[in-house]
Every structure is written in structure tokens, then in C-alpha cells.
């Protein structure tokens, strides 16, 4: 479903701040794969996400989504295949617009936007049904402005908006990191449920090692722009946080350093 070959990316080339963000990344996701990504500070996790979604272009290498090469396709056109949830709960929704208007925007992900009404009675019923899957009662507040929702509710809505049109790939960029533990649990649970129900091919960056081990069928660990560890489903079941940290030390010869990491 997703195929990345020899992806490299240099930040600030030729300046004193030059930094290798990605160095020859090879990554292949099968349809229905749910891959969690962990890594130390500056490992290149976010850059990886940005290159898949088209926010950044790689210096070299190729990206294929569902068989088609996408390096030259701009972000807004690539989004027909990609659903994204950001870390910031404010980032995935339009605050001055109502819940149903936000849903209507998401509904048109891969359609032409013309002069037909965004919210019709028929679409409203469909949006309500989708919203009820969240179990937050948002389907009863469809005329409320999204800016009035709590951070957790907004993130749940972002997740639904990114997924209900069944994208080929779902990118989750630390989407629970800015929430308090109870809300983070809620969003994690919803993520698991939605990904399972829709069999979405998913790439999820997280700082929570326990979460990275518990969710998904494959785990990759990044460091200094490389994938240093790729744990397949069979080995992932027996994995623990301690073993993961030991593994990192064995490969890198240094301790895992991340000021935000949650060991779980």
C-alpha cells in the first residue's frame, strides 16, 4: 500500500545548522498494516510523516501509494489517499464552523467542491450516524461550533473526519500526546476501534512506548534518520518496554534519550 525507497532528506543544507533528517529510509506497508513508530528526539519521525503526506519533498528516493508514484503530487492532491490527525487538537478542525460543516468538508476529501450545498438532510443523517460511533453525543450537537468543544472531543472529531471516508493510508502524528491521560485513553481506544473496523493501513507516531507495543501489528524504531529496529507481528507480542530499551542500547551503544517519552 505504501512503499518508500531510499528516502533522504537534509535540513538547512550548506549552513552550520545542516542536519540529516532522513538517511536512506526503506519502508513497505502492506494493506491493513498498523505500524507504530517510536524514536528519540530528532529521529526523523515527523519528517517521515511530512514526506508521505507531501508537506515536504524528499531530496532523493521514491514514494508510492497504492501503486502510484506520488513524489511530484502536491499535498492537497495527495490527500485523496491520506487521512491525517495532528498532535495539536486544534489543528484538525475549523473552529468557527459547526460540527456538521466540518464533517461536510471531510466528506469531500476526494471530490470536486462545487456549488451544491455542503450539508443536506441526507448527508446530515449520515454524519449523525458516523458521529454516534464516537460515543460522545456529538451527533446531538451538530450545529455547535467546533471551537466550543473540549480538546478531547475535538481530537475525536479530527480522528473521525480523517477516517470516515476510508483513506488508503492513515497517518497519526502523536495524536494523543497533547491530551490528559483519560482523554488520551479515549482517543487511543477509538483509534484502535476505527482502524480495526475499517481495516485502515496506518502509521502512528507515538512517544508512549507502552502504547506503541500494545497497538498495531508491527513496530519500528527510528534514530538519527534511520529505521534501526523493525519488529514484526510475531515478535511484537512478547515485547516489553525494558526489552525495547535494551535493544536500543545494544544497537546504538547509548541510552535512549527522549525528554517526552512515556515508558508506560
Amino acid at each position, binding site marked *: 500500500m505504501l512503499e518508500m525507497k531510499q528516502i533522504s532528506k537534509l535540513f538547512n543544507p550548506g549552513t552550520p545548522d545542516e542536519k540529516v533528517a532522513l538517511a536512506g529510509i526503506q519502508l513497505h506497508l502492506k494493506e491493513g498494516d498498523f505500524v507504530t513508530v517510536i524514536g528519540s528526539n530528532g529521529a526523523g519521525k515527523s519528517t517521515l510523516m511530512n514526506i508521505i503526506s507531501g508537506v515536504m519533498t524528499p531530496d532523493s528516493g521514491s514514494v508510492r501509494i497504492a501503486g502510484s508514484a506520488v513524489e511530484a503530487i502536491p499535498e*492537497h492532491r495527495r*490527500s485523496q489517499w491520506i487521512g491525517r490527525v495532528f498532535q495539536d487538537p486544534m489543528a484538525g478542525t475549523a473552529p468557527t464552523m459547526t460540527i456538521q460543516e466540518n464533517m461536510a468538508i471531510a466528506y469531500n476529501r476526494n471530490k470536486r467542491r462545487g456549488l451544491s450545498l455542503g450539508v443536506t438532510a441526507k448527508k446530515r443523517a449520515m454524519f449523525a450516524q458516523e458521529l454516534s460511533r464516537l460515543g460522545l453525543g456529538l451527533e446531538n450537537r451538530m450545529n455547535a461550533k467546533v471551537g466550543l468543544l473540549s480538546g478531547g472531543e475535538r481530537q475525536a472529531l479530527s480522528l473521525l473526519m480523517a477516517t470516515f471516508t476510508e483513506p488508503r493510508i492513515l497517518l497519526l502524528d502523536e495524536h494523543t500526546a497533547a491530551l490528559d491521560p483519560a482523554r488520551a485513553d479515549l482517543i487511543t481506544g477509538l483509534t484502535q476501534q476505527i482502524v480495526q473496523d475499517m481495516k485502515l493501513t496506518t502509521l502512528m507516531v507515538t512517544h508512549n512506548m507502552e502504547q506503541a507495543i500494545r497497538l498495531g501489528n508491527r513496530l519500528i524504531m527510528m534514530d538519527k534518520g534511520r529505521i534501526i529496529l523493525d519488529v514484526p507481528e510475531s515478535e511484537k507480542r512478547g515485547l516489553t518496554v525494558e526489552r525495547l530499551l535494551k535493544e536500543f542500547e545494544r544497537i546504538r551503544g547509548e541510552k535512549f534519550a527522549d525528554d517526552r517519552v512515556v515508558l508506560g
Partner: protein
Amino acid sequence: MGDAILGSLELGLFYAIMALGVYITFRILDFPDLTVDGSFTTGGAIAAVMISHGSSPLLATLCAFIGGMLAGACTGLLHTKAKINSLLAGILMMIALYSINLRIMGKANIPLLGVDTLITNISVLWVMPFVIIALKLAMDWFLHTDLGLALRATGDNKRMIRSFGVNTDNTIIVGVSLSNGMVALSGALIAQYSAFAEITMGVGMIVIGLASVIIGEAIFGARTVFRATLSVILGAIVYRLVVALALRVGLEATDMKLMTALIVIVALSLPMIRTRLKQKAVIRKRTSQLEQLNGLAETKGGGNR
């Protein structure tokens, strides 16, 4: 006084179209667009030249609308494709339009006396309200279409709307074009109403538009799009009444620009000052509440000792 009020009502109805245009850029797109000062004159210029050369007033007004849209499209292109800051893009276009408008008009002033215009045979106070309401409803409808939703989201959260497949460059260009089309339409009607077009007729128009939007929102609210567009129209009319009142109490017509600027300054800074004061009050209240609680806890603790 009665005549003055009726006069300001009429003017307010014409300027309301301009204010609706400013509302699109300023509020919906969050794009402070100064093209308005130029495109308002462009509208007046195109209408005046065409009508004085014998074109049908309706065609002339339509061409004015299109001319304004083209001017807006240029500003949009400068901002999105040449990556020029939105304020600067508007200023550049405004300056460029000054020369273009003079080219269109051929001289600084075109009188429209003795020719038939759209306004000649109608009673403004009877017809214009319907025209404005029709325009308002069309705009409300547009802002609820799929394209309109994308436009609103562009001003609200660019990153989000891009992740749902919208090219924000396009929505910005569409929005700024539409806005300046309406501004030019307003200019064309004002030229016909006052029976002349002149090169300076658009000076300060952006501030008048902002004043109308802000006054309207402050008095009549802006909770929904339907409400907000209504507020902008009423704001444009209230602004004209305020001007009439200011003239009556002895201010000169030349003082109006200063007064308008002051209205906008006060209206823009007042909400910020108000929130800050409110926040301070809440903090003071909560701190004293917490202190009281702590005080109670301490006395309790002391009793136990």
C-alpha cells in the same frame, strides 16, 4: 434632519455591498485586503465611462463587477503565487489601480449628468433593500456550498483544509476576487447615484468597510453566517447615520476619515482591553477564594495540633 436620515439610509444601502465584500476578505478569509481603495474606484470608473459613452447601465454595472473581480484576482495571485505578504499585495494593487483607473477614465472626473443610469427611474429606498437582501441571501447560500465551506475553512485553519484536499491558493484567489467584485459593484452604483465618478472616490474605503463590519458585528452579533451578513449590512447603514450625526453636531466633512479611523481603532482594541480586565477580575476572585480555602485549612490544622 429627516432628509439627512433618508440620505444616509440610501447611501448605506449602496455601501453595504462594499461592506459585504470587505467582510469576505477581512472576516472569512482573514486576509486584510487594501485593494478595496482602488477597486471601488475601478467600479465607478468602468460604469461612468461606459454609461457616458452610451452603453446600457446594466451592462456597465456588470462590467464594473467583472473589473473588480480581475483586480482582486491580481491581488490574490500576488499573495499566493508570488508569496507577497497580504497587506503589501493589497497596497501594491491599490497603487497600480490608481494609474489603471486614470487610464480607464482618461481624466480625473467623469460627470453622469443628463444620462440615464440604473438609479434614474427608481426610488432607491423601495428597490435597493430588495436588491441588497437578494445579494445577501445569494452570499449566504454560496458560503454554505461545498466551495463556500472550503473558503471559510481556508480563513479558519489552512493546514486542516489542505489535508482534506483543498488548494488554499485557489480558495484565496476566489475569495479575494469575489470580494473586490462586490466592492467594484458598490462603486459603480455609487457613481450612478451621485452622478459622477472621480479618481479619489475610493480613498479610505477599506476603513469605512471595516468600520461597517465591526459596528454591525458589535451591535447585531455574528453567531452564524446568516446573522453576520445581516449585521454587516445594518452596520453600513448605521455608519452612514453616525456620519450624518457627526456632520450635524459641527464636524467638517473632511474630518470624517479621522472619525472613521477612530471608530475602527476603538472597536478593534476594546474587546482586547475588555477580556484583559475580565481575566484580571477572575484571577483576583479565584486567588482570594483559594486563599480563603487555604486559610480555613490552616486554622483547622492548627486546631488539631
